[in-house]
């Protein structure tokens, strides 16, 4: 009796957790075959913190973020399983995977916002940026035109756009890529969301602009006290912005931990490989003689051998096993569980003790 009740009841989530994703599965149908882009993702997004989701192209990180927003293009794609437990502003616990569309529309932009990779095309070319911010404000906060415009100027100031009163009446094509990404951030934050999903927001930008945008996002995250889900393939960016990191591989989370723990003690060979792939500029200490030192040779760039398996044809066991130097027979038999290897540190590897 007690068991049955426990199974039927929506599991409560801890107070410090804003969004808890359990066993999310999002599949796509392509030419009759089922593509398991996201196949059992578990994530916890803590309140007021930044979780970075890292992975290669095709690991399912973008599909995960689109699933949270319920923006998976149907009928080709569909959320086929799992729960996304979200606590809204009024304290209600909602399962985003099953929320009716009308409810979901209130969540989108109002409670959960998203910014995209392409700042050049993420704004509508025929409206001024002020118009577009005002639209979002009017939609969720029900403010009139003058008030919405005032909020738009205020938002542009918040994202450090100079001469905001003038810029508010400009069209997107009059702005640079970095500026547009600032406008996108302003747009996403205009209704003070609890969660901001940023899908590779700096990838399309110049490196100097990237750093500015990251600084801005970090500052805004702190000031507004929102949670952030930061999707990226760049571990350098992760170190800059994240409090926690989830590493995704072939549609699953293979490791989640605090940012220091991930970099200092990775407990999954894939994470370890990703960290080894970061190109390093070795600085030699002044006294060292560069040429004589055996370890002072130039390092080759490290790469993980092979490539990510197609989500249409996943191997039976651990998806990383074919590329893993530590794989044993047991790895190829069944998918390892995501186990807690240290407080707040979970890994999906049978051999995590050996790392």
């Amino acid at each position, binding site marked *: 009796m007690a068991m049955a009740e426990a199974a039927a009841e929506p599991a409560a989530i801890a107070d410090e957790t804003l969004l808890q994703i359990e066993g999310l599965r999002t599949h796509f149908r392509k030419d009759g075959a089922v593509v398991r882009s996201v196949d059992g993702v578990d994530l916890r997004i803590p309140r007021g913190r930044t979780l970075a989701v890292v992975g290669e192209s095709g690991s399912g990180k973008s599909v995960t973020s689109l699933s949270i*927003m319920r*923006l998976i293009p149907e*009928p080709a794609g569909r959320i086929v399983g799992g729960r996304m437990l979200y606590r809204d502003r009024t304290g209600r616990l909602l399962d985003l995977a099953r929320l009716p569309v009308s409810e*979901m*529309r*209130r*969540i*989108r*932009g*109002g409670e959960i*916002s*998203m*910014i*995209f*990779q*392409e700042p050049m*095309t*993420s*704004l*509508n*070319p*025929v*409206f001024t940026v002020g118009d577009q911010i005002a*639209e*979002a404000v009017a*939609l*969720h906060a029900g403010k009139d035109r003058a008030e919405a415009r005032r909020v738009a100027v205020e938002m542009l100031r918040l994202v*450090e*756009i*100079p*001469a905001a009163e003038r810029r508010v009446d400009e069209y997107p*094509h*009059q*702005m*640079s890529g*970095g*500026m547009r990404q600032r406008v*996108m951030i302003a*747009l*996403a934050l205009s209704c003070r969301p609890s969660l901001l999903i940023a899908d590779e927001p700096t990838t399309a930008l110049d490196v*100097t602009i990237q*750093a*500015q945008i990251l600084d801005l996002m970090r500052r805004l995250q702190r000031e507004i006290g929102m949670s952030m889900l930061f999707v990226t393939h760049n571990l350098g960016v992760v170190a800059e912005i994240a409090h926690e990191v989830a590493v995704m591989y072939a549609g699953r989370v293979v490791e989640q931990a605090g940012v220091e723990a991930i970099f200092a003690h990775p407990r999954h060979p894939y994470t370890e490989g990703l960290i080894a792939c970061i190109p390093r500029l070795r600085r030699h200490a002044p006294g060292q003689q560069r040429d004589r030192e055996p370890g002072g040779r130039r390092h080759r760039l490290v790469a993980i051998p092979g490539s990510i398996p197609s989500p249409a044809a996943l191997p039976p066991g651990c998806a990383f096993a074919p590329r893993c130097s530590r794989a044993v027979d047991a790895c190829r038999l069944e998918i390892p569980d995501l186990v807690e290897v240290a407080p707040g540190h979970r890994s999906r590897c049978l051999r995590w003790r050996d790392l």
Partner: protein
Amino acid sequence: MTAVHPAGIPDELPEGPAARPRWAVAARHLWRNKLLLLAVIVLLAVVALAALAPLVAEYGPNAMRISRRLQAPSAAHFFGTDEFGRDIFSRVIHGGRISLAAGGLTVLVACAGGVLLGVLSGYFAALDGILVKVVDSMMAFPDILLAIALVAVLGPTLSNVVVALGIVYMPRVARVVRASTLVLRELPFVEAARALGVPTHRILRRHILRNLASPITVQGTFIFAYAILAEAGLSFLGVGVSSETPTWGTIINAGQQYARQAPWIMLFPGLAIVLSVFSLQIIGDALRDALDPKLQKEV
């Protein structure tokens, strides 16, 4: 090498041609292209003459003076007279009011229907299959035959001619609108709007429709030209507006009996059609070039 750009945000924007509003680019285009300018002047002249017909014409379009029947063009009758002694100039400019109005209304009907079909078909994948087949099967009929059939069913009045031609040209608009919608639908700003919780009807109105203005304008201009031709064709064949109403088509139709003795009866309404259609085609081509974002940078 130049110094590295400071990490701050540039306060001033380059005031390049890219920053110029679209209408200014279009206006520049117009001035540079003298043929286009001529076309605009001719079209405006035709429209002005038609609009001011009762003021400009010395004689009524249906005023008969048998004593002056079949007169060649002269100072008294610029375009000559027909077998009843009616002034062809007056009939052509009065007829222009109906021919141009029919063309314009056809554009409205075709665009209203075509945009609806095209946007629905382009945005909602579930409707696309059916709507594309409907549109394609409509396009399988030759324009004028379909128009004749529709007028035959509906009855030969001006409004029915407009409805028939509107239906005939609807698929052209629908195709262009569908193609553009398919592109727009996938653009990140539409997804971004969805991510902001903008309801679908608002996305269609604000984000899709507003971005369709250019292709619709271009198609509308061409359809205006086709519709003027088609209306004249229908009237000439005797299935259009009833023959008492002067339109460019009905004047030509009535004049064919006297084609040898009084060729001016057919010549002048024919010229009016040619000038209007040519002008509209040239304007349509120019609009397409001017509103094409790829070409803007060259200006």
